[in-house]
Structure formats: C-alpha cells, structure tokens
C-alpha cells in the first residue's frame, strides 16, 4: 500500500471513532466539514474533471431539499422515497441546463452566468410557491431525536454524522474510480482542450451533459441530507448565490480536479471560519462582519499565492500524491 492509502485509511478510522471523543459542538462542526467535502466533491465532477464552471449549485441543493422535504411534510413519506424524486428532478434540471447551454454553444463565463440565472430564477419561483410555504419557509416536524429512526431519517446528531461520513467516503470512492475510467479520461480531455477531444472522436456534448447530470444527482443527495438535518428550508437561504459560492470554495482552495482537494478545502475553510469566531470571541471583538473580513483576506491570500490549491503543494511535500 502506498503512503497515500495508508494515510487515507488512518483518516477514515479517525473520523469513524471521532464521535466517541467529541462533544456536541465538535460533532456539528465535523458534520459541516463532511457536508462541504461531499458537495465539493460533487461540484468537482463538473468543474474539476470536465471543466464546466457552475456557479449555481445551490439550485440542486435547494430543489433536492425541497423535493424530499415537501414529500415528507405533506404526505409523511420518509426520504428514502423522496431521495429518488429529488435525484430525478435535479438530473432533469441539470440535463436541461446542460443540453440548452452546450447545444447553443455557451461556455466559460457565459455558462457560469447561465447557471446563476437558473438558480436565481428558481429561488424567486420558490418564494412564490405556496405549496412549500413561500418565503415563510417550510419546517419539518422534529420528533424523537434520541433513537435512530432510519426509515424516516430522524435521529440524534450522531446519526447524521455517520450518514454524511458514509456519503463523503462513497463520493471519494466514486470519484477515484471515475478518474481512472473511460468517462474520467474523456472529461479530462475535454477540460484540457475541447476541440482536440472532439477531433479524437469524443462526443463532447454527450460527455459534458453526463458530467452535469452526475454532479446534479450527487448534489441532490446533499440537498436531501440538508433538509432532514436542518429541518427548516427558506428559498432566500438555500438557493442564495452565497450558498453556491460556499460549495465551490472548498474544492478551489483545496485543489481543483484533485480527489482530496475538496475534503481538505472543506476542512480548512470550516475550521478557519470557526477558529476565527473563537479567536474573536476570546479577544472580545464580536463585531458583526469582522470574521468575514478575515475570511475574505485568507481567501485572497490563498488564491493569490497557491493558484492550484493547497492539496497539490501539500501532497508533494508529504509525498502523498499517489
């Protein structure tokens, strides 16, 4: 086994036993890190592998969350059924956006703006959709938080931690195999030089749509998790462009197109954000906005001095790049 695999196995083992030593606060932070590791991995399929910049991934989180949430809210049917509805809806949306964009030859900045437009359009649409509560939000019933009710996906924070750990691990495995598969090589070819890929006989249109579909399906699952973990959904929050930005910060800071970048980026950013909060509280500087300014400055510095992200630089240093 290579050094990289040993390190990964150790990390997984540490995360598996982590709740035994962690308090409720640490557990919630770890859940958040894994959530962003998962969504970052999903976004990375589209941008990191296939080179299609989406700035509207909150669309899939929101539609997924609202689909499974509304089915539970209105009919009392647990998320195992709602999950498939969520995935189906998000894949349909993703394929629609991808189909329209790639058919009309929209790429780069224009594609990114198109994804924002769809997310914003949907946000305002949900604001006027009374079936899911409109701007007042939708609240899922919170009951029996002590026992693990897997069928309805209700339970203590520990359950959500293990579920998101499983999701993040599965996503990592999936991406690992994808990168070494035919699809993965096609995507990377498209990312590096689309015209050359086309000249080699790759149906770039189809493979780009595939990347969007897979990415949106994975993000839909995150949306379902979000709905049942937080239990309240507001269009203004869940579809907001800042949610999309949160999703993509991790993979870009961690290392775009790498397997471990999204995980490292999510950990660094979440811990940084919480660390700044703690530090400011200790210093007594709890003025609203100070934390975000620090966060912005760190972001600026990382983007300026580590253009490929933290992971490639770190992996070289630790000889983990296998």
């Amino acid at each position, binding site marked *: 086994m290579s050094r990289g695999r040993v390190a990964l196995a150790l990390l997984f083992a540490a995360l598996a036993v982590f709740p035994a030593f962690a308090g409720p606060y640490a557990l919630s932070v770890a859940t958040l890190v894994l959530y962003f590791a998962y969504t970052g991995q999903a976004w990375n399929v589209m941008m990191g592998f296939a080179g299609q910049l989406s700035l509207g991934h909150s669309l899939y989180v929101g539609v997924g969350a609202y689909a499974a949430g509304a089915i539970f809210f209105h009919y009392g049917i647990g998320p195992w059924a709602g999950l498939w509805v969520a995935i189906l809806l998000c894949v349909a949306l993703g394929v629609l956006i991808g189909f329209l964009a790639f058919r009309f030859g929209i790429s780069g900045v224009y594609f990114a703006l198109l994804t924002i437009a769809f997310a914003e*359009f949907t946000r305002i649409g949900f604001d006027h959709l009374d079936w899911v509560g409109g701007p007042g939000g939708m609240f899922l019933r919170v009951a029996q938080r002590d026992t693990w009710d897997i069928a309805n996906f209700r339970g203590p924070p520990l359950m959500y931690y293990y579920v998101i750990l499983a999701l993040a691990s599965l996503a990592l495995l999936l991406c690992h195999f994808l990168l070494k598969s035919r699809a993965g090589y096609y995507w990377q070819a498209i990312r590096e030089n689309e015209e050359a890929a086309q000249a080699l006989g790759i149906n770039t249109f189809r493979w780009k749509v595939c990347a969007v579909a897979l990415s949106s399906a994975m993000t839909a699952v995150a949306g379902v998790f979000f709905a049942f973990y937080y239990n309240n959904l507001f269009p203004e929050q869940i579809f907001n462009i800042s949610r999309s930005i949160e999703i993509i910060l991790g993979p870009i800071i961690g290392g775009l197109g790498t397997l471990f970048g999204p995980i490292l980026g999510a950990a660094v950013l979440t811990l940084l954000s919480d660390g700044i909060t703690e530090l400011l509280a200790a210093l007594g500087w709890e003025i609203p906005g100070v934390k975000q300014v620090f966060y*912005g400055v760190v972001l600026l510095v990382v983007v300026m001095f580590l253009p490929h992200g933290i992971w490639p630089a770190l992996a070289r240093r630790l000889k983990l790049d296998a």
Partner: protein
Amino acid sequence: MAPELVLNVVVAGVLTGLVYGLMALGLSVIFGVVRVVNFAHGEMMTVAMYAAAALFAAFSLDPFLAVLPVAAVFFLLGYALQAGIINPFITRPEHSQFMLLVAVAIILVNALLIVFGPDARNVQVDYQLESYELGKLLIDKARVFAAGLAVVAALLLFSFFRFTLTGKAIRACADNYLGARVVGLNVKHLYALTFGLGSACVAVAGCALVLLVDVTPGLGPYYTLLAFVIVIVGGLGSMGGALLGGVLIGVSEAVAGLLIAPSAKSMFSFGLLILVLLLRPQGLLGKRA
C-alpha cells in the same frame, strides 16, 4: 389599470434604468478590455452609496457634489486594485479570477457592515419630495437629476474612448492584446486605467442611486447580479448595449412590479437573461466574437 399609471411607472423605470445602465457600463468596460468579470461590482457600488450617504451626514454635502470626490477616489482605488491584485490574474483561468473577486466582495460587504452596521442609510434633500408635472405625468425631480447625471457620465466616457489618444490605446488593447504590446503600449497601465474608469462609473451611479433607494450592506450581491443581467442582455463589452440593457431592465422590472408582484420582478429579469444567453449570447447590441 389606468394608462397614466402605467406610463408613470414606465417613465420612472426608464430613468432608474439609466442609472442601472451606468453601473453596468462600468462592468462592461472592464470586461470588454481586461476580460475579467468583476464579481465585486455591486459591492463596489454599495461602497460608493455609503460614501455619498456618509458625506451627506457629515457635511450635508449634496450627492451631486459628492460625486466628484467619490468618483476620483474610486478611480484611484480601481487603478490600485487592478495594478496590485488583478493584473497578475489576467492570464489565470476564469474560476481563479472569480475566487479573487469574490474574496474582494466578501471583504467589501463586511467592511461596510463593521463601519456602518446593518441599518439602512439614505440622504434627504428637499428636491426628493418635488416632482415635475407634464399633463398627467408626475416625474420625481430626484429621479430626473439622477438619470441626467448618469447620461452625462456615460457621454463623457464615450467621448473619452472615442476622441482621446489614451481612449484609443485602451480600445487597441481590447481588440488585440498582442498587437498592442508589439506597438509598445503599456498594457498593464492601460488595464489599470480601465478598471479605474469602470470604478468611477460605479461611483457616479452609486451617488445617483443613493437619492432613489436606501442602502444596506446586503444590497451588494443584488446589484452585482443586476449588473450581470444588464450587460449580458445589452451585450458584454458593448457600451451602448449596457445603457440599453439598463433601460430595458429598469422598465421591465418596474412594469412587472406593477402587473405581477414586486417580489417577483427579478424573476422576469433572470428569465430574460436566460433567453438572451441562449438565443443571442452576444447580447442585443454585441458583436459576434
């Protein structure tokens, strides 16, 4: 619905749209020349709006006078931002530029929050309550002045690019980066100058807009998106297109607010954005690449 009501709303939409157009003009000029999408554009405008509101609160300086110092400072800051931070990024991939400007946007919004707090600010001058009467039309004086200022600023910018040697040099950079360097133009300086001019546009638009709406730190992302919609609809990089797009969005939002629901008006803009992106990605007045 009474026709004069609709007409009143349309006229107000056109006037506000001209101010939006000037804001978008800044974005369009920066993109057209530097090829960087300024994701901090709306945030820069809220900073200008706060600057005008603060100058009014401190010295009761009318925003129409405040526009000169605010625009000058914005020009210098824009120049410094491009020369210091963005120039090294012009050859980097789009997502990298995006991250950089998002970081700038986060810093700006929250710096405003620290300095001014979350409450809405505005300016109160006596002509805000007055209006011109044209038959059954009632037009707010402040709105007319704001639109006039926007048009004057846009004309100045047009003539700068059209008639001065520096303006010509900047257009040369936009048309052919390599050619501009071959003939010995200092491209980085010209890029910084362009970003400064774009920032000055935003500053003027902000000073005009603070007469029409209350400003909060959270407005920034909204205006960024609005500026995107306008320049895409008008044609990214086209100067006339930005003004036309501004008027179009100003009118359509005003009418949609009247006919459907005020909260649903942006849905209309984003729908329009999607249609234009798909059917005419170069925008209404843009040239095909």
